[in-house]
Every structure is written in structure tokens, then in C-alpha cells.
């Protein structure tokens, strides 16, 4: 009893789709190849239309009734002859419902035999179809006899009228939420416009074609429609009438206001669903609306730049006015600033903790950093002027480094920790700031020792539970130094394969451990440095613009990309 048809934006679209799907179907013996000739401009003037008056009067809502009445006026304005029709009193709704249920019970019989009927989400369907299996055959036959009478009645009716017109439903379309709240039977009952089932049941029982088109909207923006029912195989006729009606207004051009999902609306949804509390909503929405904007990083960055600029200026002044100022003034000034800085830090510091500590205030970390830099300047000045350590001058670096480590741990300051690590590198003879892979031959072993030492200290302190948040700083610096030293070894003439093995081993460790601990910077180090080292070795005696070298770069690059994509797909945007 189901009637299959297209659901489209316009009547013309429906005609196109219908033309495509109509016709005989070897898998459906009930389908026939009837002719279909739709013409949007064929004349309709003077055609007689039956208005199912009962159904137009059933809606209790005055707004709905007005919309439907207006629709009839539009139809009259198209030159159609409207006549009121009252359908004969047949049990349209009962016949339609039970016949459909019996059909469904038949089609879905495997659900009973397999016991899966209980798994239907819509329990009402399961009940209806189960009940339909118990319907006596005599009752079913009686229904079909009445149905034949109805079809005969419909044939007579459509000899008089080109189409019947009725409201699609007695009420505006329901909201999705409301439909979900009721079962299908209740929802269907809400749309029945009169006691015997109305036009929809009449159309179902007789199998006559029908088309519903929008005919207006309520003040709440919910649509209403009217349905055109036509004689058997006259789809083209009712499409033509529906098209004429559609063109006489613009209801079909209106569409629901597109729901724009914004951050704030999503937050509101979460609040309403209880996913976040009202306080959380307030705090987050404040940030989204920019009602609260943190300048924490900007202030810190400016303070850091201020300290660097100040120390650079101090060093420049000393260098320029060395002879004018004199040792006493310079050393007194530096010592005074140094003492002020450190005394400020010691007086304001919170008690030591092996865990992460918040700074007492914004300036605290930078005053400490300033003190450390001034200390370095003062030592440099002392050595330059008085040559206290002479050839042993590099012990200043070791001493400074130890002091900076102590201060970094005491005051939980990562800037000072970085200073300590770079100063220690200086003691090893390395300059971290110099972007060059070619460490001198004599320095390479020191660079390797430094890298291993720094990494070991970082890991050991992490295992001891001391300032675990410092570990990454150690590992970043150690990784870059080690990779740089190994690459410089590959470039060098002596035992490059040994360095290459070491580099690949380290790259492997960085990649695997980076993935393991979700620290993708180390994965990037492993891939990049490993590739650079290997390529440097393999392309050693090949011109970079040669076919071989370029082919190598393409193929090897693709391999790297493929493996990185696999990684990226596995971890998504996880940082």
C-alpha cells in the first residue's frame, strides 16, 4: 500500500525525479509502465477541483484555518473551478492502518522467525505488526472488499474532478523534539483531520497519486501544506496543478533558518545538558567573547626583553667608558645591582619545593635572571681587567654554571636553568648559540660528552622527582647538541660511518621515545636530523643538482612523508 515518490525542493524537480524512477520493474510486478507527460505550461483554466471541505474546517487553530483559506483563494485565482466535496463515510483510516500492518508483518516476517522483533527501536511498530499477525483472514478479506468499493467510489469521483484538494495535515509541522517525544501512532493521529482518516488515508487505500506542496507558515515559522489527489496514473495532472499553485506564491522558496553553530551556542548547549557548570560556562564564554583577555605572555616577554636590553646596555657602557668610569665605580655598581637582585629574590622567595612552584610575582623570575646575567658580566669584567685566573679562566664558567643550576632549582626558574646549561656548554668549549654543525674536531667529543651528561642529569633528576618539569629543557638542549655533533662527525673525514650509526641510533631513540611520551618535538628531531645525517653521507660525492641526487631526495622524501603521515593519522592533532 506504500506509495513511493520523490521529495524535492520544487514541483518541477519532483516531475524530473518521478520521470526517472517511474516505469515497470522486473522485481516489482505491481509496477506498470504508464505514460507520463508533464508540461509545466499546459492549460489548467476551467479545471474542476474538489475541495474536501471537512478537512479545511477541522483545524481548530484560527491561524491555520486562515492559511488554508488563503490557499483556496489562490487556487480560485488560477482559474480553477472549486467545488466542495464531502467524502462518503468509509473506514479509510482503519483499512489503511490494518492493511499496512498486515503487509509489514508479511514483509518483515524474518524478524519474528529470528527473534529480532524485540530489537526494534520503535516498540509500537513491533506491537502493531505482532497484532497484525493475529488478524483473522475473514476480517482482512472484508477489508479488501470495502477497499474495492472505495476504489470504485474514487474512480467515479475523479471522473467529475481533475483533483481533490485537502490540507496535508490539520496542524503545522511538529518540531523534531516533539516528534521524538511521541510514538508514531500518536504522531499520526495528530495529523488525522477527520474521524475516518481523511485524504491521506483515502489516498492510501485507493492508491491514487498525491502531491503535497507548502501553502504557508505560522507565526512561529512552522510550515503547512495542501495535498492534491488525482486519478490513477495522472501524476502529470496533479503535478501541473501543484506547479501552478507553487508558482502563484513563494512558499517553496522559504527554508528553515540555517542553524549557525557558534562557540557560544555550543557552550550554551553544554551548559543546558549539564556537561559544564554555569561557572565554567561563564568563565569560558568570557574568554570567547574577549571580555577577559590575558596579557600574561606579553608582559613576561616584555620584561624578558627589558632585562636583556638592560644587561646589554650595562656591558656596552662598561666597554665604552672603561677608562672614564674606573674599576672601582664599575665593580661597585655591578656588585650593588647584583646584591640588590639576589637579596630581592631571597627575601621574596617561597620555601623550596621539589615540585613546580609559582613565582611570587611577575618581576621575580626576571630579577633573578637579571642578577645571573650581571654576575656573568662582573666575572667577565674581573677577568678582563685583572686576569685573576688567566689560563684557568674557563673555571669561571663551571663555577657560574653550578651557581646558576643552584639558583634555578632553588627558585624554580627555567630561564636561569637554560642559562646554566648554556654556561656549562661554554665550559665544555661549545657555543650553543652558533648555528653550525661543524664542531671543531677537538670539540666534537666534548659536545658528545656534554649532550650525554645533560641528558643523563635531566633523566636522573626526573627519576628522583626533582623539578620534573625541567626535564624537557635538558632533553631539548642535549638532543640538539648531540645531533649537531654527530652530523658534524658525519661531515668530517674520520670514521663517518661510526657517527652515522650513532646518529641513526639516536634518531631512532628520539622518535620512539617521543611517540611513547607524546613529545612530538623529539619525533621531529629524530626524523629531521636522521634524514640530514643520512643524506649528507649518501650524497657526499654527488652533485646536489644531479639526476641521482634529485631522485634520491624525491624518493627518500616520499618515504619520510609516508611514515610521518602514518604517525600523524595515528595521533591526530594531539600535541
Amino acid at each position, binding site marked *: 500500500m506504500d506509495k513511493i515518490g520523490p521529495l524535492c525542493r520544487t514541483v518541477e524537480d519532483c516531475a524530473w525525479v518521478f520521470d526517472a524512477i517511474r516505469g515497470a520493474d522486473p522485481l516489482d510486478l505491481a509496477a506498470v509502465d504508464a505514460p507520463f507527460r508533464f508540461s509545466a505550461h499546459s492549460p489548467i483554466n476551467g479545471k474542476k477541483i474538489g475541495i474536501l471541505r471537512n478537512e479545511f474546517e477541522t483545524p481548530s487553530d484560527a491561524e491555520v484555518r486562515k492559511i488554508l483559506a488563503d490557499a483556496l483563494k489562490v487556487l480560485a485565482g488560477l482559474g480553477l473551478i472549486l467545488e466542495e466535496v464531502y467524502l462518503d463515510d468509509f473506514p479509510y483510516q482503519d483499512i489503511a492502518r490494518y492493511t499496512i500492518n498486515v503487509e509489514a508483518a508479511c514483509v518483515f516476517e524474518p524478524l519474528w522467525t529470528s527473534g529480532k522483533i524485540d530489537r526494534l527501536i520503535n516498540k509500537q511498530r513491533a506491537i502493531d505488526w505482532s497484532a497484525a499477525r493475529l488478524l483473522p483472514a475473514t476480517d482482512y478479506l472484508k477489508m479488501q472488499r470495502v477497499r474495492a468499493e472505495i476504489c470504485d467510489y474514487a474512480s467515479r469521483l475523479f471522473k467529475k474532478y481533475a483533483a481533490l484538494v485537502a490540507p496535508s495535515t490539520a496542524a503545522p509541522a511538529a518540531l523534531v523534539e516533539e516528534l521524538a517525544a511521541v510514538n508514531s501512532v500518536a504522531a499520526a493521529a495528530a495529523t488525522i483531520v477527520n474521524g475516518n482518516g481523511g485524504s491521506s488515508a483515502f489516498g492510501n487505500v485507493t492508491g491514487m497519486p498525491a502531491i503535497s506542496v507548502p501553502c504557508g507558515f505560522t507565526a512561529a515559522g512552522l510550515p503547512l501544506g495542501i495535498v492534491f489527489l488525482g486519478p490513477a496514473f495522472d501524476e502529470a495532472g496533479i503535478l501541473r496543478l501543484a506547479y501552478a499553485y507553487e508558482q502563484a506564491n513563494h512558499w517553496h522558496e522559504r527554508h528553515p533558518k540555517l542553524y549557525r553553530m*557558534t562557540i557560544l551556542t555550543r557552550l550554551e548547549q553544554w551548559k543546558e545538558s549539564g556537561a559544564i557548570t554555569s561557572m565554567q560556562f561563564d568563565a569560558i564564554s568570557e574568554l570567547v567573547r574577549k*571580555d577577559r583577555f590575558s596579557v600574561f605572555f606579553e608582559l613576561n616577554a616584555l620584561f624578558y*626583553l627589558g632585562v636583556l636590553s638592560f644587561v646589554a646596555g650595562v656591558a656596552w657602557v662598561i666597554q665604552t667608558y672603561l677608562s672614564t668610569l674606573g674599576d672601582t665605580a664599575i665593580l661597585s655598581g655591578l656588585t650593588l645591582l647584583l646584591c640588590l637582585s639576589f637579596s630581592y629574590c631571597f627575601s621574596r622567595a617561597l620555601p623550596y619545593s621539589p615540585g613546580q612552584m609559582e613565582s611570587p610575582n611577575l618581576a621575580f623570575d626576571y630579577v633573578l635572571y637579571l642578577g645571573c646575567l650581571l654576575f656573568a658580566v662582573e666575572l667577565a669584567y674581573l677577568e678582563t681587567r685583572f686576569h685573576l685566573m688567566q689560563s684557568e*679562566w674557563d673555571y669561571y664558567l663551571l663555577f657560574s654554571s653550578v651557581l646558576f643550576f643552584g639558583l634555578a632549582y632553588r627558585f624554580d626558574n*627555567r630561564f636561569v636553568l637554560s642559562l646554566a646549561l648554556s654556561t656549562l656548554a661554554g665550559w665544555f668549549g661549545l657555543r650553543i648559540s652558533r648555528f653550525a654543525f661543524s664542531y671543531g674536531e677537538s670539540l666534537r667529543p666534548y659536545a658528545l660528552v656534554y649532550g650525554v651528561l645533560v641528558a643523563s642529569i635531566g633523566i636522573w633528576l626526573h627519576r628522583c622527582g626533582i623539578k620534573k618539569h625541567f626535564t624537557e629543557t635538558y632533553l631539548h638542549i642535549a638532543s640538539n647538541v648531540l645531533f649537531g655533533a654527530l652530523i658534524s662527525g658525519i661531515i668530517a673525514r674520520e670514521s663517518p660511518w661510526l657517527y652515522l650509526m650513532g646518529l641513526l641510533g639516536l634518531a631512532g631513540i628520539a622518535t620512539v621515545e617521543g611517540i611513547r611520551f607524546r613529545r612530538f618535538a623529539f*619525533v*621531529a628531531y629524530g626524523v629531521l636530523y636522521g634524514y640530514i645525517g643520512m643524506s649528507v653521507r649518501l650524497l657526499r660525492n654527488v652533485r646536489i643538482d644531479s639526476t641521482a641526487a634529485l631522485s634520491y*631526495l624525491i624518493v627518500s622524501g616520499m618515504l619520510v612523508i609516508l611514515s610521518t603521515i602514518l604517525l*600523524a593519522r595515528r595521533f*591526530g592533532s594531539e600535541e
Partner: protein
Amino acid sequence: MLESSQSARLEAELQVDLRRTNNFLRGVLFLFTGLIVAASVLLTITVFDLDDELLLATTTGIAGILFFALLECLVSRFRLYRFGVEEAFAVAAAVLLSVSGAAIASTLRGNRPGEFPALVALCIGALSAFGIYRRFGYVYAAFAAMICAAGIPFQMALSAEVQRFLVAAMLTLVFVVVRSKRLQNASEHPGDEYGIIPASAWAGLYFVLNLQMSFGRIEGWFYWGTYVMIWFLPPYLGLSRQPWDPILLGIFLMAAVITLRRWLSKGPDSRRYGFTPVRLLTGDSRLLTFVSTASAAFQPEVPAPTSAPGKPDFSGGRSGGAGASGSF
């Protein structure tokens, strides 16, 4: 702001069907895709021995179009979003099309002198970068478009004043248009991105009007006319430098930060006009951690090993000192 259990639940609701990755792998993918693109184009040129400019232009032009098509395919079909690979294709497409345009312009120019190829390259670069920004929303493409467009007047035979005026007008237009868009999308995407572009345009405006900072030196009414557009630096840049300048700048920065922080903190709920000095997001700390680790690059200068001056060698006085010598 959220409990970890909440965070996991909400994150699950925010899953989209885009392929994304973290910034580190994105960087790796970008670099290697760029490497492959460059190697592929160079290989084509090498294999087919394309030393003719027109052939070179055709090759790079076709390659640019091809990479743009690949970019489109990767984004629309494979749903890549800030994945590195497609971004490298975007950059490659813009660069190759510019190179192609420059090569064609060079052949058309013949032996005539002038900046025609550079002009064409910048025009194509600006257009293609802008197109990429409009289509894919890469903010750096908008920067590139601005920079290329800003370079165009400098390739034309115009007076320096007119060149700078044109660039300033263009940047002002960008500022006004994008800022109005930003106001329309204040709290929603891409509001923040719209915030970056006018800020860059403003910085560019400062640069191009501040004749002391940019290349060339022009004096006269135009220079003084730009004075109203600029703040602290131009008068300073006109003065002679002093060694204590960095000290003053440092003190100024530190004092400004402390004053600003105190002023903001004393506002209701530790904020004024919406600005707060308090850290709100973990991301701010991560950024600071990155800066502090990178600060290891600022290794303090150490005194070079110097040998102590030897004892003065007076070699024995001959003209006084009662015969005093060095040993004395």
C-alpha cells in the same frame, strides 16, 4: 577551567572529519613536501635540459597549476587541514606561478632594462597568495599577498613619495576592510585571524611611512609629513646612539610592565577593559617554557683567554731613577 574527565567528553563531541596533526609533525611534513616539490621541479628541468626561458616558464607554470590542483584535491577530497603537505603545495604553487610569470616577462622584455619581471612576479605572487588565502584560509598566505602587493610600487618608475604613498594606501585599505570583518566576527572564527592581518597591515604601514627605518633615505616635506604617523622611534633614530640607550630601553620596558601589571591588577576582578595580567590558559605557560628553553641560545659572552701582561721590561734605566732597573 575544565576537569580532565569533562575535557575528554567534550573533546569527543568536537571531533570533525578533518585530518589534522600536531605542529611538529606538520612542520616535518611541510619541510619534506617542500623538498620533494623543489627536487621534482629541478629534476624535470635537469632531465629535459630546460635552459630556455620560455620552456622554463611553461614548466614552472604547469608545475604551479599542478600543485594547486593537488592542494585542492588534498583539501577537498582527503580533508587535510593544516597538515603540512597541502600547505607546502600552496606555497609551491604560488612561488612557481610567480617564477613562471617572471620568466615570461623576462622573455617579453628582451634586452630592455627595467624591473618588469620582478613586477610581474610580485603581481602573480600577490594574486595567487591572496587566492590561496581566500580559498584555504592560511593566514601566512595573506601576509605573503600583502608583502608582494607592497613590493609592486617599488618596481615601478615612480617617485619614492608616490611609491610609499601607494603602499600606505594599500595597507590602509587592508586594515580598514579586514578590521570591519573582524568586528563582524568578534567572538567567532575567523575573528582572531582577522585580528592578525590588520595588525600586520598596521605594522607594515608604520614601516613604510617611517623612512628612517626602511631602506633609502628621503628628506623634506614627505618625511616630516610622516611624523604624525609615528611615535617614539623616529625622533630617536635621528639622534646619535649612546651606549646607555639599551639600559634606558630596558628600564622603560620593565617599568612599563610593572606599572601596567599593577594597574590591571587593581581593576575589578583583576582586569581593566577586559585585559588581565593573570595567566588564564595553559597555552601561555607552554609558550613561556618554549621561550625560556630557547633562551639557552643567548649564551653569555665569556672573556676570551688572555695572557696576563708580563712584567714591565724597563731594561735598566739609563736616564734616571738612580740606576733602577726592571729587577729593582
